[in-house]
């Protein structure tokens, strides 16, 4: 796993070795991340920088505010659009997809 993460921090101790590694997919590609970390963090450490394409100008967007406020990291997760991946915890088997446009609501099954 190529984790683009800070391993040694002067103050914080991330204890990566104690965390559980889980598999998820990004646009069909299998990736690994730590269970419970923000989806966006898992994507970042796998080198994924583009999370959505904006509705009007069709521009790329990725990690920005990282606190669930700015809409930059909206993605489709397990079929649900507009998921704030910066504040949503990663779970094993999640299907994460790039979101294009405003997101399409789907009827509940």
């Amino acid at each position: 796993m190529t984790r683009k993460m800070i391993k040694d921090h002067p103050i914080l101790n991330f204890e990566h070795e104690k965390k559980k590694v889980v598999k998820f997919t990004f646009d069909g590609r299998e990736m690994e991340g730590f269970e419970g970390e923000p989806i966006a963090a898992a994507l970042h450490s796998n080198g994924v920088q583009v999370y959505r394409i904006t509705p009007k100008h069709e521009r790329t967007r990725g990690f920005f505010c990282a606190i669930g406020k700015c809409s930059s990291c909206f993605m489709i997760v397990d079929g649900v659009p507009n998921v704030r991946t910066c504040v949503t915890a990663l779970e094993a088997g999640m299907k994460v997809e790039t979101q294009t446009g405003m997101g399409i609501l789907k009827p509940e099954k």
Partner: protein
Amino acid sequence: MDSKKVDVAVIGGGVHGCSTAYHLAQKGFRTALFERDYISSGSSGRSAAGLRYQFGTEVNILLAQYNMKCLKTLGEDLNYPGDLEYDPAGYLWIAYSETQLEQLEKNVRLQNELGTTGSRVLNVREIQEVAPFLNTDGMLGASFNQEDGHINPHTLCFAYADAAKALGVEIHKKTSVTGIITKNGRVAGIHTDKGDWEADAVVCCAGAWSVEVGRWLDLEIPITPERHQIMITEPVERMKHPMTLCLDDGSYWKQCPNGTFMLGVGKEEVKDTSYYASWDYLDSATERILPKMPILSGIRVVRQWTGPYANTPDFQAIVGPTPAEGFYIDCGWSGHGLQFAPSVGRIMAEFVNGEKPFIDVSMFRYSRFEEGELFFEPACI
């Protein structure tokens, strides 16, 4: 302070004040409009901005025909560079009881008799066709018009205000009218917190706040302001869904052109003009609407706000001259007045000019309350 002079002073920078000022200027009146806060800051900018042919009394149906025709091309007609977001996505009135359905059938019959096109009664299968995401449990039928829809209430006001300004109307924002000057038994001007203006006529378009304006002339304008709340969601891609209004509990919702969903409930509320939004409303609106529109279950609400309905005893407007000479009123639009700005703005200018209004609105007269001539609009919540 020096006294300034105009022909007509208009109180209120909501959609009625702006349209009235524009139509007065078109007739050559030197006009000044006074708005306490900013243009569209009252009920107008806070409304659900639904537009419809579907009314249930003759006068409203005839006015609506004119409104709907104007609103379609208003941006171009007023040379407004912005977007009015006029959007005929349709409007469904849903009946849950036989009595409600009979009333809707009656409304549609009257609309058709008066020459409205496009209004029809739908059965449940037809409801599903025009609104495929609705849960139709308990619905008996509906009335529908595909030409009804939505407009941006702010740009609607700005478009009229800018067009009025282009014709020479003075627009005084952040200026409160504090009294009316009378001379020899008739209106002669107004007092404001920025000085006095002489005027031969005053038109009150102060919405739910008109009660106070009337008192300056010893008129009892029978408006009971009622707070109404409303909320908006994050945007999602446009889906096939018309404005939907349910007669069982007064809930209504629609998708705006920018993809957001607007959710409201027309129910008994606090009787005041406060702008305070309450927590419990979030529950009461979503509890009603989500079972009827389950696809919205996961959508996030981003904002909630309030505005006053200017309710009258029969939920009909009060329009025309008053016992105070030179003082005209256009208020009391209860919960449906945004869309009446095109017709009634024109009519107010006709009144001030001494003309016969192009559509008879005498049933909206101020004196109907003491005459006991109330007439209820069945198509309102």
